[in-house]
């Protein structure tokens, strides 16, 4: 592990009963790149992402984010260390407005004291206005600023995905995990998403992208990791991966046969 490695995972293993969903995965992600994790259905992509974010802990292994060991840490502690994520099956806060959804994450590293809320102290009002500013900025980056006051449930599907990215962004993360961000999006929406990912990379955020759509991944990623049956079978640049016979057999090959 070098100083420039922001995610360093060693021997990450996750079992569901008799099924080994992740089998001693090692993963190094250098700072500031877009790294994709691809693989057929059930290969362990989302499980890996859940292990990294703490949503569903690994059974064994070591995970360091920016040098800090986060294995078995509660998800909110991992979030406060600068790791944010989105979900494959969208999880927005239905009973909050679009802006409030983002504000939840913008409050990430600002402790609230009940006494400050009661008295509406100067410190509290300052913190709330900082949160508001950060949330609006995140919405503007994603292009949802004009929907700020709508109820989150009023957004169409693709914009809900964007809202999740805005929410993740509002916590000012160093690492952003995107779980199938283009799922259910049409061509135009996917292209806009790619622009957004490029923009976030330009801000120095390291992005780990789990994607089903291989073509989408190849264009945007600096490095690609391929999982199959919970094992890492290949890693490299997109062109290396496209030429790798193991990958073609496990993933692209099977796909071509169906097509």
């Amino acid at each position, binding site marked *: 592990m070098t100083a420039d490695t922001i995610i360093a995972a060693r021997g990450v293993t996750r079992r569901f009963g008799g099924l080994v969903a992740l089998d001693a995965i090692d993963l190094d992600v250098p700072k500031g790149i877009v790294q994709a994790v691809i693989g057929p259905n059930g290969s362990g992509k989302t499980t890996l992402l859940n292990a990294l974010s*703490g*949503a569903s802990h690994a059974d064994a292994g070591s995970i360091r984010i920016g040098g800090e060991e986060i294995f078995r840490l*509660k998800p909110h502690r*991992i*979030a406060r260390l600068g790791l944010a994520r989105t979900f494959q099956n969208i999880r927005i*806060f239905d*009973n909050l407005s679009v802006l409030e959804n983002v504000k*939840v994450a913008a*409050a990430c590293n600002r402790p*609230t004291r009940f006494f400050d809320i009661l008295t509406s102290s100067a410190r509290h009002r300052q913190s709330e206005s900082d949160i508001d500013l950060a949330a609006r900025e995140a919405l503007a980056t994603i292009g949802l600023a004009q929907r700020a006051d709508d109820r989150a449930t009023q957004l169409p599907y693709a914009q809900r995905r964007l809202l999740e990215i805005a929410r993740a962004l509002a916590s000012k993360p160093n690492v952003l995990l995107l779980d199938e961000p283009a799922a259910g999006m049409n061509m135009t929406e996917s292209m806009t998403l790619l622009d957004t990912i490029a923009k976030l990379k330009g801000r120095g955020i390291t992005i780990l992208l789990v994607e089903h759509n291989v073509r989408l991944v190849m264009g945007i990623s600096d490095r690609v990791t391929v999982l199959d049956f919970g094992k890492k079978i290949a890693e490299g640049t997109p062109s290396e991966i496209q030429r790798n016979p193991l990958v073609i057999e496990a993933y692209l090959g099977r796909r071509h046969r169906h097509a």
Partner: protein
Amino acid sequence: MRLEPTSWPILAAGVAATLAIPLITQDGYIIQLLNIAILNAIVVLGLNFVTGWAGQINFGQAAFYGLGAYTTAIASKAGLPWITTPLLSAVVVIAASLMLGLPTMRLRTYYLAMTTIGFGEIIRLIIVHWEPVTGGTSGLRAIPGISVFGVGPQGQAQHYYLLVAALALAVTVAMRVRRSALGRAMIATRDSEIAAEQSGVDTTRTKLLAFMIGAVYAGLAGCLYASSIRFISPDSFSGTQAILLMTMLIVGGMGSIAGSIGGAIALTLLPEALRFLGQWYLVLYGLGVIAVIVLAPGGLASVASLSQWRRAGVR
């Protein structure tokens, strides 16, 4: 939650009507009933933090109500000055809510509901069986009234104004919490615990805080109940009462401040208004509650906000 400029006249009219009630009716019974309705509204507002916002089913709210009432009754009958009783009640319910909340806030849905039912039963049994202190099933009478350095409300009407002021304070605190990071964290926890956690929300702490704030609302309402009604008995804080409080929240509208108040007042007054029906009042009452739940699952508050949206659509 944002108040539209158009809703200010409605609010002003509501406040004026509320303050005018004791001038219109001199009937002590009606005012007494309204006083109980206001106290219930404060307890349901407290329940709204835990259940309406943080999404945790809590059937222990009546027990916290009772703990506050009995703490106040026992302390003031023992000769402690009234001014100490809100503090004592708050300390007792905070301690009890921590004892119940710390181990149970990791539980979910049915398990938490069952634990809080058990807690309510334990408190009720203690009240019933610890006769020398609590008066057992016959309760405690002649509880000293509210008095701060010899000054206190006299008669039903003055108590009414005092309780309206207490409710206004309870609403102010609830609105401040709703507009703060804590309020948003509570609602986020209800909507998706995992997404809230991954956004940096400590959901266990958030649920515990909601639970404690709710308990303090109930405890302080209990304190005011004991020293303004001046008679308490275990029936007022039983499991049936806990279910009634939950019904008030559901009928009024989960997560809505106005709904919590509306539900509490409607369901406190309705049985009395339907008394002329004799035994049949329960049938009508039950049908009314079912009608609201079926026709407006979001409660009375959702009916109000729906008509607001329609108006916005026309504009």
